[in-house]
């Protein structure tokens, strides 16, 4: 029972990480129609910048604004220099250009920080593990990530549903031309949305640092799962990204944790392991296929 609870917490934590990344990605794709493969690079830029400042100053918390600022500024720069030229082009051009950005950023990081992964510190207060209920030890840092993710979700909910910018964002994801026809400076809106997406990616990257390895190419490792979240949630929908992120995080974690054990009840050990690993690594894609069968535009497709 405790094991199940712990795995659900793990899934939740993985889920909010996916949400933080998918939120930016889905906004950018939903509103501007740009496929940004370099979103993972913004995640990496946030992780490196925050970690570097944290190491220089000795404070985890000072790294946080640095990570957010670096990722947002990089995002704005990418938007102005590259992505802006791609709005009108087809998706293949966008994929090519943003793939080139991935290679460029990876090489820049190698030049600046070397190929070796860098050390990242945990905030003092969140090191170690605490006992949530008797028998359930859990790292408080992971709880912090869950809290941060939920906070961002609430903040985005208000931003999208209660503010003028949010209104334009919602309108833009449904009918871009109409928003433009109404005299809204959609260029500026795009830039703001891109910066916001980049900021969220930077937050995710910095939060992931103390758990995972801060290294070149770290963004690509999580990008595929992020795209799956966007597809399941419905392109352009923050609510979809949140629900899909959490569901996917929990499903993926629980499959990996329990499927081999369950299969071992009905078949021999090594075969159960092999089959269990096989199915659980396919798990999120099976889920995606299932959702697309029932709702071809995703769970919460914008404009549906």
């Amino acid at each position, binding site marked *: 029972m405790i094991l199940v609870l712990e795995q659900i917490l793990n899934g939740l934590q993985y889920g909010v990480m996916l949400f933080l990344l998918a939120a930016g990605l889905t906004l950018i794709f939903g509103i501007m129609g740009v496929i940004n493969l370099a979103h993972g690079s913004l995640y990496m830029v946030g992780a490196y910048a925050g970690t570097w400042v944290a190491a220089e100053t000795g404070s985890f918390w000072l790294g946080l604004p640095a990570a957010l600022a670096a990722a947002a500024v990089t995002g704005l720069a990418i938007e102005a220099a590259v992505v802006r030229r791609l709005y009108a082009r087809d998706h293949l051009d966008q994929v090519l250009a943003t793939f080139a950005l991935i290679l460029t950023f990876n090489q820049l990081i190698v030049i600046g920080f070397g190929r*070796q992964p860098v050390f990242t510190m945990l905030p003092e207060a969140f090191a170690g593990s605490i006992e949530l209920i008797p028998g359930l030890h859990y790292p408080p840092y992971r709880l912090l990530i869950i809290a941060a993710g939920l906070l961002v979700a609430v903040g985005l909910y208000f931003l999208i549903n209660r503010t003028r910018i949010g209104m334009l964002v919602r309108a833009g994801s449904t009918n871009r031309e109409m928003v433009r026809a109404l005299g809204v400076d959609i260029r500026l809106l795009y830039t703001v949305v891109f910066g916001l997406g980049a900021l969220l990616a930077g937050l995710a990257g910095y939060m992931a640092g103390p*758990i995972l*390895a801060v290294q070149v190419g770290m963004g690509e490792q999580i990008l595929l799962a992020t795209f799956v979240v966007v597809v399941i949630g419905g392109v352009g929908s923050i609510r979809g990204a949140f629900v899909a992120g959490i569901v996917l995080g929990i499903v993926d974690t629980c499959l990996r944790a329990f499927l081999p054990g369950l299969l071992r009840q009905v078949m021999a050990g090594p075969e159960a392991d092999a089959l269990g690993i096989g199915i659980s690594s396919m798990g999120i894609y099976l889920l995606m296929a299932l959702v697309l069968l029932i709702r071809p535009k995703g769970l919460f497709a914008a404009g549906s």
Partner: protein
Amino acid sequence: MMKTLMTAASLVAMMTGAALAQDPLKIGMITTLSGPAGYLGQDIRDGMLLAIEMEGGKLGGVPVELVVEDDGLKPGNGRQIAEKFMNDDGMKLLTGIVFSNVAGATVPDIVDNGAIYISPNAGPSNLAGSECHPNYFVVSWQNDALHEAAGAAAKQLGFKNAFVLAPNYQAGKDAITGFKRTFGGEIAGEIYTQLDQTDFASEMAQIRAANPEVVFQFHPGGLGIAFLKQYAQAGLIGQIPMVLSEPSTDAVVLGAVGEAAIGIHATAHWNRDFDNAANAEFVKAWDEKYGRPITYYGSQGYDTARLIASALAKTGGLDDIDAFREAVRAADFESVRGDFKFGPNQHPVHDWYLLDIVAGPDGKPMAVTKEKLLDDYGDAYADQCKM
């Protein structure tokens, strides 16, 4: 008139001949320089370059040029680079591959072509046994042997019950097979993780639930860093000891993990503090040139270059490939790891050591050699090799 022409022609021929002799011998290096595992290939390359530089651009008195290309951890790339090296540039000596899956796709092609391949890292099991080849040498270790050392260490430390984890690919399976071969105790749980997995929280919960006496895990590079950090954050580091093989505890991993690594039992065939003249010279030169932690990958690149130097010193070049092969087989060089010779399958026979990870003078973790675990140890596949 005819005579003048002949003289001129032979003069020209002599000049080109002379020019050829001054061209450095090209050694082809296929290695992984990009992505999270890029530091592995970088250290192997820099170890080799260091040896070449220390001899003034030569190996064994022969001027050499190391031509390096990045395989991006893709077997297809490795194969293409090898073909280019051999067909277009006429290279007869290749080296450098980091990963077993790249080696598996590339090495057979190289040796079938009549070229010599000397591995500074990957030593997959299939190429060590029935598929061994006279033109294929491994300087580093056979894959399983890396983890057999960890199994032997766990047994010697008195653990009876182990939880084992590794990524779900060939080297991961070799790792767990190797560990079990020498450990001999009970296995409390066995998990194969995904090769691209970086969050191990679910595995941590399972380890805690199984409550074994010791944990063995093999996760190279960034995966291992993530695993160790999360092991510490889950509060397991002081509770359940870990015995690890070399790829999970290289100097870069220790640096990135920080104090969470202190107290781990590690196993290795080389460590910075080995007390021999060759190693002292190597460590000093590395520190002066690069000023970053030396990994065992660096030591393997250096050893590979020194081995090539020892053979070139005898043959003077690659014109007689049979003589060169014989000279390599003799392994007539001082390895930075101490004892070294080739077994019947041209894989190393050397010693394995138990290391402790302790806090260094600056509080950061460092590996200290504790004792010799296995003496003149080869690998489990040598008997299957018929040359």
